[in-house]
């Protein structure tokens, strides 16, 4: 059974259509990356899946319609990592990760032993144990991103939504975060991510879906979706696509010829 199924999903925000008639499907343990230029509707698709915006059409999680589920039931099925999470500066990493247990707790309940253990496991998994008592404000960008992922892990939801998980990370941290998501995926997590970086999207996701102006323009394997012509047409970018085993890459190329400054001078 598919973990997530979108049928004719349409979303309008403030009267403006953001997503139009989207169809998509994710099997358990699959990683689907949403690509597409800025403003294509990638984030909105993630938010609709997490039940955070109203929609027309259907979003079903494991057969259950999101709009018909309580907030808590959705949160037990979907962990959402936003692009710029709000990190309360003085809250400790341990407290923050424990917030991930919220969907498993009754309205006025407090965390029990099992919840603390789940949070401790998530901290350990993301190598954050020694940060547990540090305030969030003291973390670097990469550490903070790991803390957010740890919170999502503590949530123990089968579907993980990542909105631009590698923004603001250096190339090493980008790889570490995505390798980690890949590990979690191999353990059975289903991943839906919005990604700017086409190379990383192509390297890590099983399938890509390209959104442009709220519509799906292409869907399939990275090589099928990310063709030079398509990237040129929808991103207005000149790229060279390299597709070799383990080394899928979309390499930007300069349009103007490179003129060294000394050469430019000598010509005058």
């Amino acid at each position, binding site marked *: 059974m598919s973990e997530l199924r979108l049928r004719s999903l349409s979303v309008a925000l403030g009267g403006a259509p953001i997503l139009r008639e989207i169809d998509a499907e994710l099997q358990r343990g699959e990683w689907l990356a949403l690509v597409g230029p800025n403003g294509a509707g990638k984030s909105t698709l993630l*938010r609709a899946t*997490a*039940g*955070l915006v109203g929609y027309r059409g259907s979003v079903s999680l494991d057969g259950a319609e999101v709009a018909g589920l*309580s*907030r*808590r*039931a*959705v*949160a*037990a099925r*979907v*962990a*959402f990592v*936003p692009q710029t*999470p*709000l*990190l*309360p*500066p*003085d*809250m*400790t990493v*341990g*407290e*923050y990760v424990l*917030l*991930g247990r*919220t*969907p498993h*707790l009754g*309205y*006025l*309940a*407090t*965390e029990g032993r099992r919840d*603390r*253990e789940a*949070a*401790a*496991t998530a*901290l*350990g998994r993301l190598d954050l*144990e*020694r*940060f*547990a*008592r*540090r*305030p969030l*404000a*003291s973390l670097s960008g990469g550490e903070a991103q790991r803390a957010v992922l740890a919170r999502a892990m503590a*949530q123990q939801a089968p579907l993980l939504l990542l909105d631009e998980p590698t923004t603001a990370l250096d190339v090493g941290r980008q790889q570490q975060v995505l390798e980690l998501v890949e590990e979690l995926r191999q353990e059975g997590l289903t991943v839906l991510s919005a990604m700017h970086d086409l190379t990383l999207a192509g390297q890590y996701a099983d399938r890509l879906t390209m959104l442009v102006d709220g519509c799906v323009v292409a869907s399939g394997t990275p090589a099928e979706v990310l063709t030079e012509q398509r990237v040129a047409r929808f991103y207005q970018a000149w790229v060279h696509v390299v597709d070799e085993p383990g080394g899928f890459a979309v390499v930007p190329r300069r349009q103007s010829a490179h003129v060294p400054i000394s050469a430019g001078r000598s010509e005058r």
Partner: protein
Amino acid sequence: MNAPDVPLATEGDAAAGHARPAASFGRSAVALILAGGFLLASVVVGISVGPVHLGVGSIIDATAAHLPLLHVHSPLSDTDEAILWQLRAPRVVLACLVGGMLAVAGASYQGVLRNPLADPYLLGIAAGAGLGATLAIAYGHGGFASYDLLPLAAFIGAAAGVGAAYALGRTVGSGRSPATLILAGVTITSFLTALQTFVQQQRSETLRETYSWLLGRLDTSGWRDVILVLPYVAVSVVALLLHRRLLDVLSVGDEEAAALGVNVGRVRLTVVVFATIGTAAAVAISGLIGFVGIIVPHAVRLLVGPSYRLLLPLSLLVGAGFLVCTDMLARTVMAPAELPIGVVTAFFGAPFFAVVLRTTRMVGP
């Protein structure tokens, strides 16, 4: 959070994930015991200090005399007994209730509106209660006790003020964001304040009495006021304490809290309702005692961090002790005259807060 935590944490602790809850439990317990000790000391000193000095020992004996099975005889004369039980004790207990309530409500409003400047009076409570009290004082004088009318009028005014602000906030735009709610509160406040000023102008002969109410006072008529506010404060404090974990969840913002499974609108409404019930009851009896609701939670936050699990119970204890201390100053500094307690809370609270701010400024962002 606390400076000593940082080196501790970087030294590394293999089992930190498991050790942390126990360690922070110990820290919480120490903080709660210290705050409880502060409150107890404030209460004892608050009862003993006054025009007639009552020794701490005789207060304890006199209290024990009222307990069954102990067979202690009160060392106090009948007059001193009356001073202790009919004047000092109810006043100190009222200070505890009002101070604790204002501090817990302030912390809750700050959490639920995610605004550090929120105080218990922000959403129209002050203006609503002010209008209610002004009306009662201006038009309630008619032979039959206006003093019985005043608390009721202030309570209704406060609740109506917040209700109007909340209703307005909901109708403005689609979002029920904290900012919308605060703006609605500001709107309602200026409208009600205008009405209140108008009433005052119409009945300028009652200006002095209205003014003295606005400045706040704990001038009680024995246990009656205590019994009047106790049920509201108890219900409100218990409900707010039960929401302390949810207030932590709200600190990651409305959308992320919703993604974590919290019905943000419902939690916000519930917390506002309970904080308002308690604050309105406190205001109805004591007038507008400023500063407690904003200074106490922030001082506690600077000392123990932002988590509402510890912040709310500590604010309750520290707020209660703080108001007992300031009330003691209000009635002794210029004895036999009494200073308005609202003046004292700010006069002594502001420098105290400045010290806390300075000594902890290296911590946090």
